């Protein structure tokens, strides 16, 4: 039921800008923050607040809002946060994707059961 000028439709409207789009009722999913969510929040704050101040909340929002559509639709809220942190760390040159991949591989190796290791 969007009443905005039709000329602005679709390609211009950001994927996060959903106000007025048909979406059905809101299904609140109240729960205690999980360990994962708390960790993402902690990492985020350490990066945003002094003395690090690597990027702003505004930058995080920009990145958060411009992830690919599949990512935006399927990731949970804090997963999107984590994704935006990853993208900003790369954008600011703190880490490279290769470094992140290497670390993940190392962690996988360290935590995999012995029998599965090659």
């Amino acid at each position, binding site marked *: *039921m*969007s*009443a*905005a*000028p039709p000329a*602005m439709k679709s390609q*211009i*409207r*950001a994927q996060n*800008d*959903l*106000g*007025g*789009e*048909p*979406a*059905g*009722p*809101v299904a609140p999913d109240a729960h205690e923050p999980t360990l994962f969510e708390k960790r993402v*929040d902690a990492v*985020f*704050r350490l990066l*945003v*607040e002094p003395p690090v101040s690597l*990027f*702003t*909340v*505004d*930058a*995080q*929002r*920009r990145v958060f*809002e*411009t992830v690919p559509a599949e990512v935006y639709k399927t990731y949970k809220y804090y997963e999107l946060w984590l994704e935006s942190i990853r993208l900003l760390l790369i954008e*600011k040159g703190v880490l490279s994707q290769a470094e992140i991949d290497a670390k993940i591989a190392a962690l996988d190796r360290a935590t995999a059961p012995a029998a599965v290791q090659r």
Partner: protein
Amino acid sequence: MSLREGQTVHVKTMVPTGHCRTPYYLRGKTGTIEANLGAFLNPEELAYHKSGLPKKVLYRVRFDQKHLWPRYPVTRDTLVADIYEHWLEPASGTAKKSAAPEAGVTAKPKKAKPKAKAALPKRAAAKAKPKTKRRVAKPKRRTAQTKRRAAKTGTGRRARTRANARRTAPGRRR
């Protein structure tokens, strides 16, 4: 540009390519300045690791729900949004102009609603009489119907609260 309380404004129909803070559904709409909230670093610049200078004045703007959503069931409801100055322009010389309603705006916050209605003079006049009767039933309808509606459209108080919470959340929650 400095806008004053009670002034009628248009939200610009801009189509920015980058990060922006003005919801799509408000672009091109007409509202009334409710308050000047002060100047802030421009978030649309901060989003790109820039300084955010010069600061932009943030205004609280009130809109008629009926104006935003033509099928909105209630005439009296309004929506408040915080919008940066570079997204606003005075609505001078428009038919919708509500005859400079300056006096006593701050002193009597209740006046904000009737004033928003003045943006639609004919309808307001037409409904002036039955209003007294309707008012009795209003509060109930508002909670049931409007909330459901607002939940659907993401424009209600909850949506705004959520949006505000998110905006201030990362550094502040807990």
